[in-house]
């Protein structure tokens, strides 16, 4: 006797295209070629997550990196905040030394709590991407549309109030959304989000919002924290990725993109930061690299859409 209803082996969404209406299918290798400024084959997008974890976790799910022990979890509260106090400053120096611009996906709470950090980011010409309220501001389908709408509005309002700028981009915590998120982000006037990792170039959702895919596989969190590799192994992977994409771009006659997602409490540690510096110094010498902020990549893509 089956414990499953007949509907378990029926497939109402089996049809050409996706089983949802969020975006259309497209093969990256058959698209109109994209040209980056200066005819550079690869756009390297550095994106740093700035995260403030309340010591009192809440929200629909626990963000990666959130508290672990029974309250009060000093261990994780402080080692996460290390990134905001120390690690990110190392990164800012590294970016300045290499002469490159990056995106910083920041919780609104970061902007409110650490104005010196925001000032340093803005005065160096980096971009700020909205990254929810704080690390309790996770989104999933259990949140409910109205609550989610209020959360996104609160994050945007507080970020604009604290920085004087309304971000164009949005990164959800853990890249997790609900089926309402894309419309809510559009309604909040955002141009792009970074959550969907299904592509290696920007593409447009059916509601007009743009996806700028921030590949989680290439993040320091996946390589170092999840896969437990060394910073040197991360560096080797970034070089392998850049080499491949440069070759692929030449073969396709179209630009490619290499997103490098960084976390200050992970890559900003004293024994790891050297790997990032080595990468930046190598890439800065490569003629094929266009270092670009997220909004610059999106703008270049939109111009040629």
């Amino acid at each position, binding site marked *: *006797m*089956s*414990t*499953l209803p*007949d*509907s*378990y*082996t029926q*497939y109402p*969404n*089996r*049809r*050409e*295209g*996706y*089983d*949802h209406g*969020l975006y259309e*299918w*497209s*093969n*990256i*290798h058959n698209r109109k070629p994209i040209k980056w400024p200066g005819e550079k084959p690869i756009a390297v997008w550095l994106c740093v997550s700035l995260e403030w974890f309340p010591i009192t976790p809440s929200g629909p*799910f626990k963000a990666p990196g959130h508290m672990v022990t029974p309250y009060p979890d000093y261990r994780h509260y402080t080692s996460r905040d290390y990134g905001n106090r120390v690690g990110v400053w190392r990164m800012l120096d590294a970016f300045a030394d290499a002469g490159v611009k990056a995106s910083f996906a920041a919780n609104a709470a970061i902007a409110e709590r650490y104005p010196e950090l925001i000032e340093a980011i803005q005065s160096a010409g980096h971009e700020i991407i909205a990254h929810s309220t704080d690390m309790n501001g996770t989104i*999933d*389908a*259990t949140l409910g549309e109205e609550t989610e709408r209020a959360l996104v509005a609160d994050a945007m309002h507080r970020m604009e109030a604290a920085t004087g700028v309304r971000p164009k981009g949005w990164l*959800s915590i*853990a*890249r*997790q*959304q*609900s*089926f309402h998120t894309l419309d809510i982000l559009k309604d909040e006037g955002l141009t792009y989000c970074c*959550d*969907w*990792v*299904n*592509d*290696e170039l920007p593409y447009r959702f059916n509601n007009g919002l743009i996806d700028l*895919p921030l590949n*989680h*596989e*290439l993040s320091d969190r996946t*390589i170092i924290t*999840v*896969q*437990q*590799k060394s910073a040197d*192994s991360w560096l*080797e*992977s*970034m070089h*392998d*990725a850049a*080499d*491949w*994409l440069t070759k*692929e771009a030449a073969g396709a006659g179209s630009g490619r993109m*290499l997103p490098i997602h960084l976390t200050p409490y992970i890559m900003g540690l004293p024994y790891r930061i050297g790997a990032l510096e080595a990468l930046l110094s190598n890439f800065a010498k490569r003629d094929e690299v266009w270092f670009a902020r997220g909004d610059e990549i999106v703008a270049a893509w939109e111009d040629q859409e």
Partner: protein
Amino acid sequence: MREGAPDPELYEYHPYTSRPKITWPGGKTCAVWVAPNLEYYEIDPPIHPKRSPWPHPAPSVVGYSHRDHSNRVSHWRMAEVMSRHGFPGSVSLSVALCQHHPEVVADANARGWEFFSHGIYNTRYSYDITEAQERAIIEDSIRTVEDATGQRIRGWLAPALTHTPRTLDLIAEYGMDYTCDLYHDDQVQDVKVNPKGGGGQLASIPYSLEVNDHYGFFVYNMSGREYADTLVRQYERLAAEGENSGTVMCIPLHAYLIGQPHRIGPFEEALEHIAKDGRAWIARAGEIVDSWRAQQ
């Protein structure tokens, strides 16, 4: 299988070092086959009481979009590398991909790849389905792949590796020649089946969890280069042992993993190594099973 018994009685015990010698065409020692999983994962599938498809309530954005990377970006990257070094694929296919993204299936077919069924979707689990439901899935698989590619499927890899006690008997009854679901050997072996109507033979062809790219990257946490090195070591050993009796090495892949920009370069080097070595019989699953069967 013997349902409910501690020993499912899937096969006979045959010690590795005292078997009749298997020889591969051209005097090659190791049959190497590449098994790309061409899959479709549903964004919001019905929930099976025994297994949850996604870590978050739908849409589980990273899980879904990571797999969608295969069908927008990395399938062609992986396929080009394979074609460049002379490796055809034997595809573990979520057959609904024939409807959702026929372009991907057509590309694989045009490259001369073989198809076997990996269920309708990789988000539908076979536990507790009825015999009628299971027959419907098998018949759907046969019909769907034939309509899309002109090929009659000869093998099976259970969707998300989920089985019923009757799966092996049923696929034998429908005339299939091999299963990829058993991991007990480095050589093709007979599986005990008892299909309705009698007769029926089923071979187990070595697939692999151990050198599956998913295990490599997210169980053993290898870098792209470590995984490539693992493939070379696996191959070197099996090619050497195949001097005594032909071995089989499978490289099971998922484009969204192996086709990431930091992994595909080292992977290409591993394929190149195997292709140039001279001891590899680079073949499709069906050819390997046929050659083995002819020697029984």
